[in-house]
């Protein structure tokens, strides 16, 4: 076993902690913690940012560099840039509106695209970087503390104040070694642009900082204090979802809203449920009837999506007034068990897109933790069928819905499909996301005594389907 691997049971191995809930039990995103780090060129901003990331030791920290937001140059500026004669250290070299948009998305917990700057062509690259899932964002650059609107979003503002002789020495070393420049050119550029820009525009932003770190990375004491401060603030914000959802929101199935659609309880549906709930059912039968019931749920779920009128002519040359689908369908499965229902969707909707989300419950707290997300890039324009065979506490479903919303999907475009749900779980989802429709085959009234350990009538669905019981 490599270091960092966590064996949490005899069959489950997790290599990371995953991302804990980043939203309230009401389904609203908590504001993301933002750190701004400014300072002169080669003052050690990036090193300080990296040190903070290392010390926090959590995977959901993102560093956004101001280099991503160099603006598109005008033709004659571009010509000068190729002659190393353009002032990239002037505040007007940056596109603050785009930086603001990206940071605002990140602050609100939305998925966003961060531009990339191509230093060889001196223009923004066509490629953008998809960023999602940061609970802490570090924005670093010479003018990170320059724009008033951006300053407004920062939770803590740091200025790295390194002696300018040291900065110059580092800059010469870096540009010669890494960027292939000659020392004289670097010095000329420093005299003409870097030094005046620093004195005129960068250094004054020190007044906007909460903390000034003299000597940059060498100042271990200041950096440690800073990291402790950030850790404390993050702990205060850490959301706990399970307890408020389950303990405070108990209700009976009669109190549920009409966004819940239960499959008609026909003989076949009831008989299939009985087989799935029976602990003596063989794995063959469990798989067969899960698949069969999934197919019915999928047909029912597709029936929730909007259609438009369409008149066609039959081979008898008579009109038939019917319907056709209105928009693209994306199926998103909550892994592992949701994959079972994806098979059923694939057999009826050949042209659907598929996204996947891996959520694993923490073994001690039962908090859901996000480990993996991959969604179609255009998902915000799609109707989304979210699939998970069981809704127990509702916590996994809420996280999956929150992820879709963070990617721009409209709440009313989401239909959550499940074979079995508890009233508590459905209620928790309905409170947080009142427009999400939920289609289930059975509402299970059997609830365990301990609210944190509600287990559905199927037992552990994924283990029974995949044969991975402990």
């Amino acid at each position, binding site marked *: 076993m490599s270091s960092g691997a966590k064996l949490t049971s005899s069959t489950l191995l997790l290599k990371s902690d995953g991302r804990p809930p980043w939203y309230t039990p009401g389904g609203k995103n908590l504001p993301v913690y933002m750190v701004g780090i400014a300072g002169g060129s080669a003052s050690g901003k990036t090193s300080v940012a990296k040190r903070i990331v290392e010390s926090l030791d959590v995977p959901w920290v993102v560093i956004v560099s101001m280099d991503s937001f160099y603006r598109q140059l005008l033709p004659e500026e571009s010509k000068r840039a190729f002659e190393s004669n353009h002032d990239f250290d002037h505040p007007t070299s940056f596109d603050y509106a785009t930086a603001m948009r990206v940071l605002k998305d990140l602050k609100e917990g939305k998925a966003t695209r961060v531009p990339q700057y191509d230093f060889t062509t001196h223009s923004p690259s066509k490629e953008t970087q998809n960023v999602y899932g940061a609970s802490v964002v570090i924005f670093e650059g010479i003018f990170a503390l320059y724009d008033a609107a951006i300053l407004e979003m920062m939770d803590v503002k740091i200025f790295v104040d390194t002696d300018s002789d040291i900065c110059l020495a580092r800059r010469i070393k870096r540009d010669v070694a890494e960027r292939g420049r000659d020392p004289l050119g670097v010095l000329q550029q420093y005299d003409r642009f870097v030094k005046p820009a620093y004195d005129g525009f960068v250094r004054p932003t020190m007044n906007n900082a909460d903390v000034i770190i003299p000597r940059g990375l060498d100042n271990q004491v200041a950096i440690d204090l800073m990291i402790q401060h950030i850790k404390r603030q993050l702990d205060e914000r850490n959301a706990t979802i399970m307890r408020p959802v389950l303990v405070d929101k108990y209700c009976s199935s009669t109190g549920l809203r009409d966004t819940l659609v239960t499959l008609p309880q026909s*003989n076949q549906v009831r008989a299939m449920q009985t087989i799935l709930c029976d602990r003596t059912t063989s794995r063959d039968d469990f798989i067969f009837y899960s698949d069969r019931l999934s197919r019915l749920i999928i047909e029912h779920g597709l029936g929730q999506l909007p259609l438009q009128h369409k008149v066609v002519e039959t081979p008898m040359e008579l009109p038939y007034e*019917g319907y056709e689908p209105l928009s693209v369908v994306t199926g998103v499965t909550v892994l592992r068990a949701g994959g079972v229902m994806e098979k059923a969707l694939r057999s009826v909707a050949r042209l659907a897109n598929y996204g996947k989300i891996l959520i694993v419950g923490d073994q001690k707290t039962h908090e859901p933790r996000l480990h993996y997300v991959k969604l179609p890039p255009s998902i915000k324009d799609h109707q989304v069928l979210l699939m998970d065979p069981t809704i127990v506490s509702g916590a996994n479903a809420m996280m999956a819905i929150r992820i879709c919303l963070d990617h721009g999907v409209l709440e009313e475009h989401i239909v959550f499909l499940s074979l079995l749900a508890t009233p508590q779980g459905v209620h928790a989802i309905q409170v947080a996301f009142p427009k999400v429709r939920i289609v289930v085959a059975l509402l299970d009234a059997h609830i365990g005594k301990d609210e944190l350990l509600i287990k559905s*009538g199927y037992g552990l669905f994924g283990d029974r389907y995949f044969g991975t019981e402990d």
Partner: protein
Amino acid sequence: MSLSLQAAEHPRLHQLPQTNQLKALMTIIRDKNTTRGDFVFYSDRVIRLLVEEGLNYLPVVHKEVITPMGIPFEGVSFEGRICGVSIMRAGESMEQGLRDVCTSVRIGKVLIQRDERTAQPKLYYSKLPKDIANRWVLLLDPMLATGGSAMKCIEVLMEAGVREERILFVNLICAPEGALKMLERFPKLQIITAEIDESMDANKFILPGLGDFGDRYFGTED
């Protein structure tokens, strides 16, 4: 009251829930411009729904099971053995839909053609499970027009000992005249269909219909 309405209200004629979703599937099947691949795919989808609905008319008995969590669960279990009987050739298109939900189900086949001299349906071939008299029968034929061959087939089944009340006739679309005639002739028969159409033309084609199902499904149009 129009014949279609009369048929729709008949207690032994069961239509699938008339949702817009079902209409969207039927729109594709009925459209004369639909490709054969789509015709087969969407017919199969509706057939699956029809088979699931048809099975709901089979009896179940109360059953209590214990869940993996050790809690009793009040449910039901299937009662009664079934088999499928398809009317060749179009009915064979529905066999896979039945097999998908009832693995290793027994399936009988009947070939009935119109006798050119008498214009009456005539039995040419039948091969049925030996113990069919003890089974429920899902009779499969996608189109119910006059009901001539289906009625002939029911006669064959009843001669083999099948009880009338255990026959469920499953089809995609039906003409109201034919459906009502069958239900009158066999007072315990139940019919499960996706949609009830308007009427029939002089050549006994269903209107607005979907053309010849067998030809479109098996690709044997002229």
